[in-house]
């Protein structure tokens, strides 16, 4: 049977993990600063934050970064603890389940952000 994975994929994942971390580390403090600068964060102000297209795009990229980062992180945990010979199928099933869950979250996030008009 062909082996699942390859020597180079790990390096790609490692890099994607770092790249998504950098985006989150830049976006999150700036967003919190921006959001908390409002004197009192009531509903109209909270909604108005997400009105500009730029904020929708930046927030969606943040969601993408979170999901990519999380999926790779969980993959790493599964690799560390589920490495017995018969665990491969279980591990692949978990990759699949979380990929479906997080892709669904991505589509959901688009709907949430673009519902603000």
């Amino acid at each position, binding site marked *: 049977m062909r082996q699942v994975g390859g020597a180079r994929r790990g390096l790609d994942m490692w890099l994607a993990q*770092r790249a998504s*971390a*950098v985006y989150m*580390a830049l976006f*999150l403090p700036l967003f919190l600063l921006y959001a908390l600068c409002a004197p009192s964060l*009531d*509903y109209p102000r*909270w*909604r108005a934050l*997400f009105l500009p297209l730029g904020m929708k795009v930046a927030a969606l990229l943040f969601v993408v970064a*979170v*999901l990519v980062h*999380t999926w790779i*992180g*969980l993959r790493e*945990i599964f690799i560390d603890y589920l490495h017995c010979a018969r665990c491969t199928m279980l591990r692949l099933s978990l990759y699949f389940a979380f990929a479906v*869950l*997080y892709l669904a*979250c991505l589509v*959901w*996030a688009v709907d*949430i952000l673009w*519902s*603000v008009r």
Partner: protein
Amino acid sequence: MKPERPYFLDLAAIRLPIGGVVSILHRASGAALSLTIPCLLYTLMLSLRSPEDFQRVADWFGGIFGWVISMGLIWALLHHFLAGLRHLGFDLGWGEDKEVARKTAWLSLLAAVGVTALIALWRLA
């Protein structure tokens, strides 16, 4: 022939070094955060949907249950963030020296707890 090596596996006496503590908490906080993503999206959806739902979210976070859960999440996020910055530093070759690495491990551990405590006080005030 395999060389005989000394080993020490007295689990009651082994102490994880501070870097190991920060590392396992980084993993645990990451795993916990990964499971909260759908809940956070649901909260975001409610908060943006209508003034009534926004108020429901605000009330929930103000209640004892929501307060405790959100403080736990804030700690997990802060710890994961700070320990993650430390790891990014290692990737660039910064702070790999043993003494420096121990100091930054303590710093990220204590800063996460400290900032969480400050936020808790601010939210109670």
